[in-house]
């Protein structure tokens, strides 16, 4: 049996699959070890990909050459752009997915990559040589050797599942947890913490009364995640449904609190503030009489529904009793209860921005094990860990995306410098350059990078270049072409903006908020024909050109700000700097700076606990 590989990946969830695909497609021989071959690419929680801030991550993964976007498209049962009423920076794509098809598609995609090998087993120990990882040892006693290892263990390290007073060890309900790695890593000085997350009950769709519920359909003209032509927009979309809790439901749940592991102190891990359990919501927002709940289909060939918003670790009978009072669920049966899971994570501040451990060379960490929550956050890290592990063993410089380049850059930068106390979830407000980091320009931001590092295939890159050229030509065309008042004034009056009295460039007109490029050219058949000749009827080209024109002012200002901030990045902190000798720094800053050893003043400024005045002190120290 082959036991020598370039890179071994432990875990085959959203992070592990992306890591394996990326490293293998860049040319590394990869071994993917999973405890259960049938659970590759499993959606452990909600059957959806994307959403606000998260949809942008998927688009970025896709633009770099990752596979999450493609897999999401191929398994989609609904597509929606959230926040359509807001500006393009807020538009956020989301799919509902067929849970089984999603996992099947991931496995198929991985099996198509000849460089990926699989092994079903549990890793119990890393093989270390001094401060370098050399491979892994499994439960079956097999030793696999490699130049790099990526840990993407999700919630499986010392996982404990809570349903009411019931506690079982496990990584997901019905699946074993994993021990050994955590304990071994602690002995080399890597610090771990505990986190908690939860999932709601799954409902039998045959027992839901949909007639009283508000339908939540997908977009009329669905788009898709992937920039590449290998996927098509979803057809025959399924609906989600909206229902609400009420005071009666809250009372029932509250009666169960004394048996809740959340409130009896059994769960010690820190839960996500932003994706709280229903019991958390009732306590923290006690003034609210109702909370939204979404019923989401789990797939095309099943009656199972996911009750989004009802994550709970209350005893089964309490969950059942409360459900009876929710409109539409009066007679509902459930397939499995909601539960909470506690698991080990390693403080991500112990990683370099390449996601490599500062303690053990060539050991990388990605996903929930770094303290994040969400498939998209995990997949983004998996992709970057896969890329960087490959680059590292080929002695190439690592790929670190900057905060103004990608949400992925914001995510990893936050994790390794700020760290996180609770499960970290992406928000658009975490990005300083939100208007630049749009879902629809992820390809323009990242595809050249993906191609340059050898991940994005040439044909996709050429496809991107062609689109880019089309966008430029559309912008060029509208910048040069003027229209007569007589031709356009009826349109201007119709959309409620002032008519013009002399010829005006189309571009100038487009800067008016009331005017959209599509409406405008639809009104001018001649222009329409000319522009469609450029775009070859690709509406994403029109949309991209329009955003660049309408938001040019903001984009320029963000660019200026990025350049300003970049100056701090250029101020190098000497690695020998003894922060403990700088008594002027706050105690917390001294500790954090000594532990994290930022390489630039910019990095230092983003470490939590390092205040602007600490930064001024460092600047003065550097002689600025």
């Amino acid at each position, binding site marked *: 049996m082959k036991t020598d590989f370039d890179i071994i990946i432990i875990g085959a969830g959203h992070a592990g699959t992306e890591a394996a695909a990326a490293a293998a497609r860049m040319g590394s021989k990869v071994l993917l070890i999973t405890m259960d071959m049938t659970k590759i690419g499993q959606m452990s929680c909600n059957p959806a990909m994307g959403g606000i801030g998260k949809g942008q991550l998927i688009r970025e993964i896709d633009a770099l050459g990752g596979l999450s976007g493609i897999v999401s498209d191929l398994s989609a049962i609904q597509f929606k752009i959230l926040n359509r*009423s*807001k500006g393009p*920076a807020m538009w956020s794509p989301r799919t509902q997915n067929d849970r089984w098809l999603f996992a099947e598609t991931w496995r198929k995609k991985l099996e198509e990559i000849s460089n990926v090998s699989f092994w079903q087993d549990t890793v119990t120990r890393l093989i270390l040589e001094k401060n370098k990882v050399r491979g892994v040892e499994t439960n079956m006693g097999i030793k696999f050797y490699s130049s790099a290892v990526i840990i993407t263990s999700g919630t499986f390290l010392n996982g404990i599942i809570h349903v009411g007073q019931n506690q079982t060890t496990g990584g997901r309900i019905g699946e074993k947890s994993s021990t050994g790695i955590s304990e071994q890593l602690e002995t080399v000085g890597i610090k771990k913490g505990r986190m908690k997350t939860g999932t709601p009950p799954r409902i039998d769709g045959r027992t839901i009364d949909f007639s009283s519920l508000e339908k939540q359909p997908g977009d009329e003209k669905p788009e898709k995640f992937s920039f590449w032509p290998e996927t098509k927009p979803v057809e025959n979309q399924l609906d989600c449904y909206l229902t609400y809790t009420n005071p009666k439901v809250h009372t029932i749940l509250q009666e169960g609190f004394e048996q809740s592991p959340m409130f009896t102190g059994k769960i010690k891990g820190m839960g996500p503030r932003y994706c709280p359990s229903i019991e958390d919501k009732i306590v923290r927002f006690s003034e609210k009489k109702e909370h939204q709940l979404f019923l989401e289909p789990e797939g095309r060939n099943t009656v199972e529904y996911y009750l989004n918003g009802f994550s709970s670790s209350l005893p089964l009978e309490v969950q059942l009793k409360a459900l009876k009072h929710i409109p539409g669920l009066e007679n509902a049966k459930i397939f499995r209860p909601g539960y909470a899971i506690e698991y080990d994570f390693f403080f991500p501040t112990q990683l370099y921005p390449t996601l490599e451990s500062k303690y053990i060379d060539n050991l990388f960490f990605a996903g929930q094990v770094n303290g994040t929550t969400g498939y998209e956050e995990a997949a983004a890290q998996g992709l970057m860990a896969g890329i960087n592990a490959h680059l590292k063993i080929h002695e190439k410089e690592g790929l670190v995306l900057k905060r103004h380049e990608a949400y992925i850059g914001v995510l990893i930068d936050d994790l390794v410098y700020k760290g996180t106390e609770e499960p970290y979830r992406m928000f658009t407000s975490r990005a300083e350059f939100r208007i630049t980091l749009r879902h629809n320009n992820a390809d323009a931001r990242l595809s050249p990078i993906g191609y340059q590092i050898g991940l994005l295939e040439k044909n996709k890159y050429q496809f991107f270049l062609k689109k880019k050229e089309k966008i430029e030509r559309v912008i060029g065309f509208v910048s040069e072409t003027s229209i007569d008042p007589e031709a356009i004034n009826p349109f201007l009056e119709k959309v409620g903006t002032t008519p013009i009295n002399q010829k005006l460039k189309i571009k100038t007109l487009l800067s008016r908020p009331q005017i959209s490029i599509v409406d405008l050219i639809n009104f001018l058949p001649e222009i329409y024909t000319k522009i469609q000749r450029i775009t070859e009827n690709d509406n994403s080209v029109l949309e991209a050109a329009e955003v660049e024109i309408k938001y040019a002012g903001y984009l320029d200002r963000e660019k200026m700000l990025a350049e*300003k901030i970049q100056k701090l990045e250029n101020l190098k902190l000497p690695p020998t700097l003894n922060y403990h000798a700088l008594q002027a720094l706050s105690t917390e800053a001294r500790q954090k700076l000594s532990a994290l050893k930022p390489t630039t003043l910019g990095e230092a400024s983003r470490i939590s606990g390092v205040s602007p*005045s600490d930064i001024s002190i460092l600047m003065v120290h550097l*002689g600025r």
Partner: protein
Amino acid sequence: MKVPPHVGNFSASDTIFAPATPEGVSAVAVMRLSGPAAFDITEKIFKPKGSRPLKSGTFPKVIYGEIRDGEEVLDEALVLAFRGPRSYTGEDVVEFQCHGSPYVMRRLGQILLEKGARTAEPGEFTRRAFFHGRLSLDQAEAVMDLIAAETQAQQRMAMYQMRGGYAAQLRSLRQELVDLMALVELELDFSEEDVEFASRSKLERLLEDLMALAEKLRRSFASGQALRQGVPVAIVGAPNAGKSTLLNALLQDDRALVSDVAGTTRDTVTDHLYIGGVKFQLVDTAGLRDTSDHIEAMGIERSFKALEQARIILWVFAPDALLSADLSEKIRKTAAVTQATVLRVWNKSDVTPPPDSNHFLAVSARLGKGVDGVREALIQAVGVATSALAETLANQRHYEALGLALEAAARAQNALKENWSGELLAFELREVARHVGAITGEVVTDEVLGAIFSRFCIGK
């Protein structure tokens, strides 16, 4: 990257010195020494007359003794010793109060160099104070202003800022803004969920408050600027009205050339005058008349320039030197545009009293009569009681940052009014917070610090 030569040895390991008083002969001169070796070095060169030990006991302390130059006594001096962190710089500090001889100070410097101290970089004492947390950034900036203060009004302004001043007001408004911004951000990221929205009316009110304060501070900048550089006063009038004589009378000096010949002053003459703690910049101008003399015409052109820049116009009339209606109209118009205060001075009142004593300040510049009245009128014309001057914005960097904050705030208001998409509103609010933060020290950028520390002078 621009790196000064002292990188790496800046840290507290060095002991630095510099004279704390200006060069030249004086009664007393002070040499300041700061750093970890300050006490050791002092022990080597200073012999106390009594038995008080330098290094122990209570601080700060004053010791009388001799500064030794080898076998000889360089000077008898008082030593003030401060134990860090309770000193200006936060380090051990020794101040030598010597006799104010340039030789003694020079020689003392050489001795300190020999014993291992080094000359301080410009602004290094204050830099160290800031570095050791003894001063905040805006306070450090104020110290610099204080040192440069020439008048009481300037000193009050600098003291006000050093004690927190308007930064505290801005800081609390900024904090309120940041709190509301968090809600705006929340709306954006949780638009699919049922979250509380930021109150638009509260946000509008806060922006109004912030803008009002910023505008007030920016308006005061002109007066602050005037306080530093001197309130510009233009002395204008017809040729031979006695403008230069008035200037000299105000200065009690023969600064400007005077004669009976009309048009003696062909160029503007500038000098400073301090009255009641306020600095004035007096500009004597060429007399205004229609002339064919090319040089004189150029001088008159400059007179009008001075007129435009003046905040106070001393318009000198004399019975035998009255302006043409055209030129008078021009002065009035200029003053109306620049909103300068016009003081009408009736000169040569010893010869002919003014036609209307309510309308004119009666003066005889030649005899020095009525000049005090002009002084008083000048002070009144500055229009601000010195106590109110404290809240004046005097810092160029703050002025610019407030300007940027105001622009962003106006755009944010517009975003609210026209109901722009939330991320654009958030963008503008972030800008406001960033620019205000650059004043309050909550946002630090390279340029902020560069702007501050490049302005320090040696010794502080």
